[in-house]
């Protein structure tokens, strides 16, 4: 228990520092876990309590993701979403998967690394767009849709991975039934749910917390993946009053998710036989592959490589979803790779998103300097 309190205290200090420096806090939490845990000082160990907290963090992360799914908006203008989304998926997932497989990981491990490699951190990307005052740029909208597309892909991948060896038909019937029940409750109980959330006492928080936990345990009971069901619960409840649910789920998500990151760091063990070369290659490729996909998307959607550079600069950071995948389906080796990947990309991403305008200007200036003869020629 003492270890747990130490971790909590360290996180609080780190959170303050990261807010002060205006850099994402996720890498700090993981690093704190690594330093305090198995790979470092060994002060903090994961136990039942920490396991419970991490699990809560994951569930609320997924619940939130469900709440923010806006399917109606995506159907409204699918062309942009699909072009950029599919380019990103093909390039990043392709590079990540191939690299991991060639570096000697098994097919499934390579698939998980590939996905973790592809999925960026919505939280970090959106926050840095706001903090760096980039909301007006035309690339921002493309980036936002990229994030939405990634969420959909993630849900499909979670469904695929959690299916395991079950009978396909039976599995889908179970999921469809559970989804149906949830949507019926959200549809016919809408008024009642909204009146519950409107109360000023402890009911809204208690209800939100209970809804997520009950859904998770019921889905384990009937044998469907609780991750899927919690996302579906979020999506179903988003049809009632998503703002109220977000407001009441946020305290749980904020606290538990920090624990989730720290204890992910705690379980990292560098002696699991992953060599430095593999990690370095994957980290560098993670930045390069986003550059390739970013440039392609920039040219395809905006007709400009500079736009692609801007997209790249803002979508480097991997984060919560990559870790969630590693925790849910990855081996210890995958966990280590993803931990370093997240720390490295978030730090690089924080830098590039802050200085992208400056980079663009420098490139434009260089381009001008190297092409004056052509200009003179044009004038004549």
């Amino acid at each position: 228990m003492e270890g747990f309190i130490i971790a909590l205290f360290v996180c609080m200090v780190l959170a303050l520092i990261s807010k002060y420096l205006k850099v994402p806090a996720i890498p700090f939490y993981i690093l704190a876990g690594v330093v305090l845990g198995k790979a470092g000082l060994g002060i903090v160990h994961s136990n039942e309590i920490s396991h419970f907290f991490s699990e809560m963090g994951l569930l609320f992360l997924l619940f939130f993701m469900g709440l923010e799914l806006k399917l109606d908006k995506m159907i409204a203008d699918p062309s942009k979403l699909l072009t950029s989304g599919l380019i990103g998926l093909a390039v990043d997932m392709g590079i990540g998967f191939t690299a991991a497989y060639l570096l000697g990981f098994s097919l499934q491990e390579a698939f998980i690394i590939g996905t973790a490699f592809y999925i960026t951190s919505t939280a970090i990307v959106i926050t840095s767009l706001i903090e760096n005052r980039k909301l007006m740029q035309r690339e921002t909208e493309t980036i936002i849709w990229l994030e939405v597309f990634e969420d959909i892909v993630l849900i499909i991948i979670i469904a695929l991975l959690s299916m395991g060896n079950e009978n396909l038909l039976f599995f889908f019937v179970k999921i469809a039934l559970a989804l149906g029940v949830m949507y019926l409750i959200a549809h016919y109980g809408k008024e009642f749910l909204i009146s519950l959330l409107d109360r000023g006492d402890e009911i809204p928080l208690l209800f939100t917390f209970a809804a997520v936990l009950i859904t998770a345990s019921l889905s384990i009971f009937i044998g469907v993946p609780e991750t899927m069901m919690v996302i579906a619960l979020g999506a179903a409840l988003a049809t009632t009053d998503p703002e109220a649910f977000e407001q009441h789920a946020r305290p749980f998500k904020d606290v538990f998710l920090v624990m989730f990151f720290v204890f992910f760091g705690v379980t990292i063990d560098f002696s699991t036989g992953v060599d430095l070369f593999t990690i370095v290659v994957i980290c560098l490729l993670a930045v390069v592959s986003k550059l390739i996909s970013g440039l392609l998307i920039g040219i395809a959607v905006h007709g400009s490589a500079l736009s692609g550079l801007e997209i790249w600069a803002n979508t480097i950071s991997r984060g919560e979803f990559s870790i969630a995948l590693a925790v849910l389906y990855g081996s210890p080796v995958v966990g280590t790779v993803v931990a370093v990947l997240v720390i490295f990309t978030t730090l690089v991403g924080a830098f590039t998103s802050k200085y992208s305008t400056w980079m663009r200007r420098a490139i434009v200036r260089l381009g001008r300097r190297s092409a004056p003869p052509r200009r003179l020629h044009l004038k004549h």
Partner: protein
Amino acid sequence: MPLRSQNLPGIGTKYEFSTDKGDTVAIFFTRTGTVQMYTLQQGCQTPSAAEMTPMEARRLGNILTGAIIEADQESVEIAFSALADLRITLHTLIIPASIDGKTIEDLQIRAKTGATVIAVSRHSMNIINPPASFVFEAGDTALVIGETDQIKKLEREISVE
């Protein structure tokens, strides 16, 4: 000047319009509760931005609607288009030492000027709808409501006293 509004998932609501001269202004109400305003001059590549708290954004709104704002006294003018363009001004006044100890009744504020004191702020406490027997202290901030002329008259009265 068509105003476009858009909901951006994860970010918030965006409002954007182009002025007749070709400049663009965009306002974002972000999920984090802040308001960001971007202005892009015609022909420029990068917009300039300002981030505001909701309070600051309201202040900016007041300035843009044409209300006067001074360092320690501010006015808000509200126009009700449904009520034959009724224009009402809310104005804050700092009570000078000259009327320290006088009541609203003594000063005959409503009879003389037509304006009404609707709230007084003293040591960061607010007294809403003070009675006629309310005694002013120097340094109080009074919130008065009335037409612009009535407010001006009141300001003159107070400085004469």
